Every structure is written in C-alpha cells, then in structure tokens.
C-alpha cells in the first residue's frame, strides 16, 4: 500500500509540473495559434533564474521558509521576456506552421546558448531548499512536503486559470479572440495587446514551473528539450488548445510513466507514446480538443 502511494505521489508530482508547462503551451496555441516550442526554454529559464534569485535572496537574509514564494515570484518576474518575444513572433502570425516551428526552435537554441553564457555548462542546483519544509513519513510511505506544495501550486493554478477564462470579462475576451480573431477585432478588441498578454501568461506558467521544480532537480542545458517533448505528448492526449485537456493529459502521462517505471521499466517511453498513438488514431483532436474542420 505504501509503495502504491509512493508511486502515485511521484506520478502526480510529475504531472503537476508537466501541467504548468503544457498549460502555457495550450494557452498560447488556443488564442494565438502558435505552436511554441520555446515553452521548454521558459521552463529552463525559470529554473536557472530561480536558483540565482534564491541565492541572492538568501544572501540578503531572507528566511529559507520563504523559498517557495520566492521561487514563484522569480517565475512571475520573468514575465518581462514575454512581450518582446511575442513582438518577434508577430512576423509569423498567419504564415505556414513550419515558420512558427522554425522560429520557436531557433529560440530554443538561442536560449541554450544564453544559459551557457550566463550560468555555464555545468548543471546548477539549489540544494538547501528541497527539504526545508520537511518530509511526511508514515511507515514506508514518505513524501517531501515541498512536492506536495508544488502539486498544490499546480492545482491552484489550474483552478485560477479556469476561473479566469470562464468567469471574468477578460477571460471571455480571450476566448472570443481565440474563437474568431477578426470578429473580436471588429468588435473593438485590441488583439495585439491580447496576444502580448496571453504570450506573457504562457511564458510565466513555464518559468514558474521551472522555478518550482528546481529545488527537487537541477537546471541543465538540455532540460528545455527534454521537457518540451513530454509537454507535446500531454497536448496531443488532452487536445491542442484545451486547458482541461492539459490537466487530464498531464495526469495521464505522469501516472502512466510512474507505474510503467515500476512494473515495466523498459517500457516507460513506449507506454506513453502508445497512448499518444491511440489518441491520434481514435480521437485525433485529443480527449478535449475540438476537431478541425
């Protein structure tokens, strides 16, 4: 039973981080129709910057207990990179998807060099933060409280995003723009501004995910590419552009991965992509996506 619980919590933790990155990807695609490969780079940037931010905060005498909110703040602060990058992406709006993919992939490579230039080639870690909040132990079951806090942060983000999109005027405007850009523009919506805000929000979801995960892991040059591949599996399963899809897709990927690692370690990747293939065959638009006519 304890082993089952350990595996379950491991899977949900992975799903929580995946959801944050995939949610940013979904939001940007849903509204702007841009497949943003650079979402993985935002995730990596959040991780690297989170380390630096906490190191400075610690030097300034900030209590270690404030590490989690500190990391969230550092992720949000990085939102400033959203508008200039969105400005650059305007050149490929409405053009063939291959242009978008090439441009956002170029961003991935450029970010990788920036990380190397600023933080060096060595992996960077934030060691002192992970266990500061303690570990819950019951018999053979144990989980660091930090992992639970990250899961909670993802749940709150999911609920907050849902409420924002469904229940606020701004959310309705976003959905209307996603639905029909020209009509929204004709009705007086400043679409450029909406795009800039949506892209920044998507970037902040990625940077915050990276900042939150770094105490448990390490920031490395390859983490962007590593994570974006899984995020795309989430998007395919959940349906491109669907926030509910991102949540369910992340849970499916996280849990399938966790259980296959335990029971069929050789088939970890196969198990995930079997689901992806099944979805593509039987429900090409994803579990919650709308089929493109």
């Amino acid at each position: 039973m304890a082993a089952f619980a350990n595996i379950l919590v491991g899977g949900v933790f992975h799903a929580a981080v995946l959801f944050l990155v995939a949610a940013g990807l979904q939001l940007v695609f849903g509204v702007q129709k841009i497949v943003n490969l650079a979402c993985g780079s935002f995730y990596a940037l959040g991780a690297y910057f989170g380390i630096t931010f906490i190191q400075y905060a610690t030097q300034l005498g900030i209590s270690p207990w404030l590490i989690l909110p500190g990391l969230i703040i550092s992720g949000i602060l990085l939102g400033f990179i959203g508008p200039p990058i969105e400005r650059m992406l305007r050149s490929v709006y409405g053009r063939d998807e291959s242009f978008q993919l090439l441009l956002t992939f170029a961003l991935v490579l450029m970010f990788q060099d920036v990380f190397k230039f600023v933080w060096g080639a060595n992996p960077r870690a934030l060691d002192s933060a992970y266990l500061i909040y303690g570990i819950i132990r019951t018999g053979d079951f144990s989980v660091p409280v930090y992992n639970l806090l990250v899961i909670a942060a993802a749940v709150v983000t999911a609920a907050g995003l849902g409420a924002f999109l469904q229940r606020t005027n701004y959310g309705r405007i976003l959905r209307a723009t996603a639905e029909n850009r020209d009509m929204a523009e004709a009705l007086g919506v400043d679409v450029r501004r909406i795009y800039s805000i949506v892209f920044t929000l998507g970037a902040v979801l990625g940077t915050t995910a990276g900042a939150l995960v770094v105490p448990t892991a390490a920031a490395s040059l390859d983490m962007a590419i590593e994570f974006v591949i899984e995020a795309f599996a989430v998007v395919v399963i959940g349906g491109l552009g669907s926030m509910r899809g991102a949540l369910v897709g992340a849970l499916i990927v996280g849990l399938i991965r966790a259980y296959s690692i335990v029971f069929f370690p050789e088939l970890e990747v196969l198990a995930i992509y079997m689901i992806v293939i099944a979805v593509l065959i039987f429900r090409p638009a994803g579990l919650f996506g709308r089929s493109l006519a």
Partner: protein
Amino acid sequence: MAISRRTLLTSAAAVGALSASGQVFAPAIAQNKPLRIGILAPRAGIAAAPGENGIRATQWAVERYNAQGGIAGRKIELVIEEESSPKDTIERFSKLVQQEKVDCVQGIISTGVGLALGPVVEESRALTIYWDGTTQDGVVEKIPNPRYLFRSTDNECEAIMSSLLTIKYWKGKFVTVAGINPDYSYGRNNMAAFIAVLKRFNIEHKVVTEQWPKVGTMDLTSHVAALKAAKPDLIFSSLLFADLPVFMKQAHAAGLTEGTKLVFPAAGWQHTLMKKEFTPEGMLFGHNTLYFANPNASSLAKEFVAWYEKTYKDYPEWEADRAYFAIASYKAAVEKAAKAKGGNWPSQDDIIDTMVGLSVESLGGKGSWRKDHIADQTFVQGLTTHKNNYDFVTLGTFETMYSTELQKPPGADFWEWIKTAQFKV
C-alpha cells in the same frame, strides 16, 4: 651586424650539442611552424561540463609546454571543435585533418561518437587519441586493430573496481540488489559487469529491480519509488550526468539512502554537486582516474588542482586527467621519437610506434599505452566522508588500482575474461 665565421660555427656547435643532449630540440624541418593539435570535445549539452574539464586541462598543459619551448621545439596551437552528434563530429574531424592540417587530434567523450569516428580515423590515417567513450559494445566489429587510433581505458574499468570493492567491504552483508543506470551502452554494460563479477565470486544475490532512466531525466521520483518498493540491500548506479545529484537528492528525501548500501562507480564526474546534505557517508564512490583531493597526489596534480580552483572556482574531475594524459603522452612520444632520430622531426608512424609501451605521469598517476592502443591508467574509488572543508562529499577510506587489474588483456573478450580473470580483492 656582421657575423664572423667563427661565431657562426660556435653557435652551430652549441645548438648541435644541446640537440644531442635531448634537452632542447632543433628539428631540421619546420622548426618555426607551430604544432597544431585538434581538440574535439563537447561544449554544450549533457557532456558539456566534462568537455570543459578536458579542454581546460589541455590548455593548462599547452601553456606550460609552450613556456618551456613547446613539443620538441615547436610551439603548440590548439584548434578546438565541438563534439556533438556522430555525423557532425566526423565532419569536424575531417575539417581538422584536411583544412586545419592538425598534427594530432585529441578528445571525444561519447562512446557513440567514438565508435562512429574510429573507422574514419583509420581511413584518414590521422593520429587520434581519445579521452574517453570506450565501452565494449561494437569496438571489435568497428575498430578491430587500430593503427592511428589510441583509445582510453575500457569504460567498464570503474564497474569492475566497484564490484571488487563491494565484495571486499560488504561480502555477506547484502543479498537483494537493485540497479539504476543510464539507458545506453555505458549504463547497461556497467550493471552487467557488476552482476558478472558477483557471479564470478559466487556472491549470493538477487536482482530485485533494474531502472534505466534516459540520460538527462530530471524527475526521478518515480524511479526512486520503484527502487523503494523493491527494498534492495544494495543499489548499484552508474548515473553520471546531471541526473546523478538529482537522483541522490530525491532518494535521500524518500529515505532510500538510509541503511541501503550504495555503489556509484561514476559519481566523481559530478563530485562537486554531490552535496553532503543529501549524499551519505560510507557510499562507494568512484573518482575514476582523478581524485582532486588525493593526499598522495603528485606535485604536478596538486599544482593543477590549485590552478583550477583559483581560475574557475571549481575542482576538476577525471576528464581533465584523460585530456592531460592524451597530450602528455603525445608530447613524450614525439620527443622520444625525435631524440631517436637525432633531433629530426619524427614521422607520424615513428610517433605512433613510440607511443606503444610509453609510460607517462598523468594528473591522476601513472598512465601507459598498450600494444593494442588502449590506455592503462590509475583508478581511485573509496567510501564517502563528510569530514572535509567542502560542501560536497570526498573520500575517507580509498583505494588505488592500476587498470591492468581492471581491464581485459589485448584481444580478449570482456565478458569471457570476467569469468576467468584473476582479480585481487
């Protein structure tokens, strides 16, 4: 100023005498032309950190050699290219040889790249010395009898040493064994070698789970849960990239490191990231061919470590030693071959022939080249301690072994050799 015939003759005689003494070389040809050494090493991606270690050690060595007159009287110039995918690295190797006209190529960390490049090296007839990346798989088929290629010690040496030390320290104290190793030939072979040595010594054991995370996996919580569910007495792991400290951190948080014997032959690649906070004492920890804090280190090694610390605020790992060994043995071979030719610059074939059997002092200790062009080097592994002035673990008790005790003899099959080798435990 006019030079008299007497002055000219005196000078010529003095130069000749110095040349003959072997202290200063005056090759008959190209004395003013720099010696060009091509370096192929990763500077980005998962192996960027060891790549930088190797490059820095090479640059340190070159700076010293140039201050002393270079190699056999020729100053050294480095031409550094990136090691990346096999295809791209082969193209850069060809560029180094054909366009840059380098005299020797050194580097290579990845086994996959090394295997693909091997036949190209032979075809190009360009003297090449690998730093690393020499697991057993595919070597016999792809590079059976290399003439121009010199390869590092077998990558499985560290697993053999860890296996022997496991038996020495913990025989009779474990039964259930789990593995978490990177999912490529290095990880697979190391785990298989560990089990093969246990069998060789009739050590009762039962493998309860084997985990194969992809290199660079940063969330290992599910792997840790799987290991915990298997309740092993001992965990063997050759994780060695950024995933290693991540695993330790997550394993520590899950309570997996308490009471479990840990055997990590390759942990030294990330030694500065193995913080005391989550890396326990008493773990079997491999530093491969360079343990930076070795109290028995040579003055050369101590000087290098001090320079590295001062320059980079960091401590070197074994790839620095591999790179130093490559350039030091090349220098020694060139100078020995030049001396044998009376101070004339030796041919590439002369240098190759001189390399075989040559022994040099590397940063981690003695190193030499076998007749099959495979290196023998000095390995260090031991049990971790927190008793030091760093924030990461170092070794308390440790052992040093020369690779003649750890790698198969020329021509032998590795797996068959394990079954019959006379290991010293």
